[in-house]
């Protein structure tokens, strides 16, 4: 994927979280403070506005991540902003990222999120979507698949990972204050992560 394709991914992710803003906010209202959809729409809109006119994928991701950090509000800003910035740094100056490099960028994003938020799998957070997505991507890559197929495998694992947060009891974030009452709800951060991974897969497949 080249710079313009990565910029298209950011636009596609922005469109998706905006379309689904109401649903994300509804999920967040159940176990959080009910602003996730609104916050992410605002953050990703700022990312689209901050997209550079050109440049390699790494530069595009870092610019988008920086805008998300400063404009999102809420914990998702620092987390998604860090994810994009770390992914961007992992891409370095490459003009075109191949399947292996995109996998490394996804892993860097996951590591950045975990370092900042200190969440592990099973805590009912975005990590429960992102971690299985990174694993599925790596497995598809090891199986000899191309970038688009790897990205699709990641998106599907991310979706399944998000769905699997429903029976979990939250151990991180505001929802953890609810204890057992957080069980039975889909985690909004995992849900938005699944949307963003789907946007990546769509753009990788040229469906955007």
């Amino acid at each position: 994927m080249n710079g313009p394709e990565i910029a298209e991914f950011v636009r596609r992710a922005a469109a998706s979280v905006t379309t689904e803003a109401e649903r994300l906010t509804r999920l967040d209202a159940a176990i959080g403070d009910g602003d996730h959809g609104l916050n992410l729409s605002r953050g990703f809109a700022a990312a689209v506005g901050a997209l550079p006119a050109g440049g390699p994928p790494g530069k595009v991701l870092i610019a988008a991540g920086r805008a998300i950090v400063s404009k999102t509000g809420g914990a998702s800003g620092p987390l998604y902003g860090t994810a994009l910035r770390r992914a961007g740094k992992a891409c370095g100056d490459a003009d075109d990222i191949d399947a292996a490099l995109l996998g490394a960028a996804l892993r860097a994003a996951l590591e950045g999120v975990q370092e900042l938020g200190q969440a592990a799998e099973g805590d009912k957070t975005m990590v429960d979507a992102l971690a299985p997505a990174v694993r599925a991507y790596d497995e598809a890559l090891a199986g000899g698949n191309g970038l688009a197929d790897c990205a699709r495998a990641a998106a599907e694992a991310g979706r399944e990972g998000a769905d699997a947060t429903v029976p979990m009891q939250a151990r991180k974030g505001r929802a953890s204050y609810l204890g057992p009452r957080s069980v039975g709800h889909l985690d909004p951060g995992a849900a938005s992560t699944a949307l963003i991974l789907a946007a990546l897969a769509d753009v990788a497949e040229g469906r955007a």
Partner: protein
Amino acid sequence: MVGIVIISHSRTLAEGAAEVARTMGVGKAVVETAGGDADGGLGTSLDLVERAARAADDGDGVVLLADLGSSVLSAKLYVEDADGVAVLADAPLVEGAVAAASMAATGAPLDAVVAAAESARDHRKT
């Protein structure tokens, strides 16, 4: 002197905690606030954190105290990218701010101010 930065989702909470730290602390410390989001609503703004930290830092470094959630994450991001020396204290907001301000006013170095803030966690209330 080590500066103190109080980061809260609420502008009034940040200013209130700073007021308590400045007046109930032992001695005169520099306490700056980053309260609320950039539009004055509830939330956190990394830009406001950067501004407050710059205002609080005279070269001896700053200690950050944060309330919860995105305040903590923004503080960590600031520490990661900071030009100067900044440390996030693992401390309760109000008690930590009073302890940090008291220690900072003595002219103590950064690690001592962080330790003072974090020792506030051990002050049990029952």
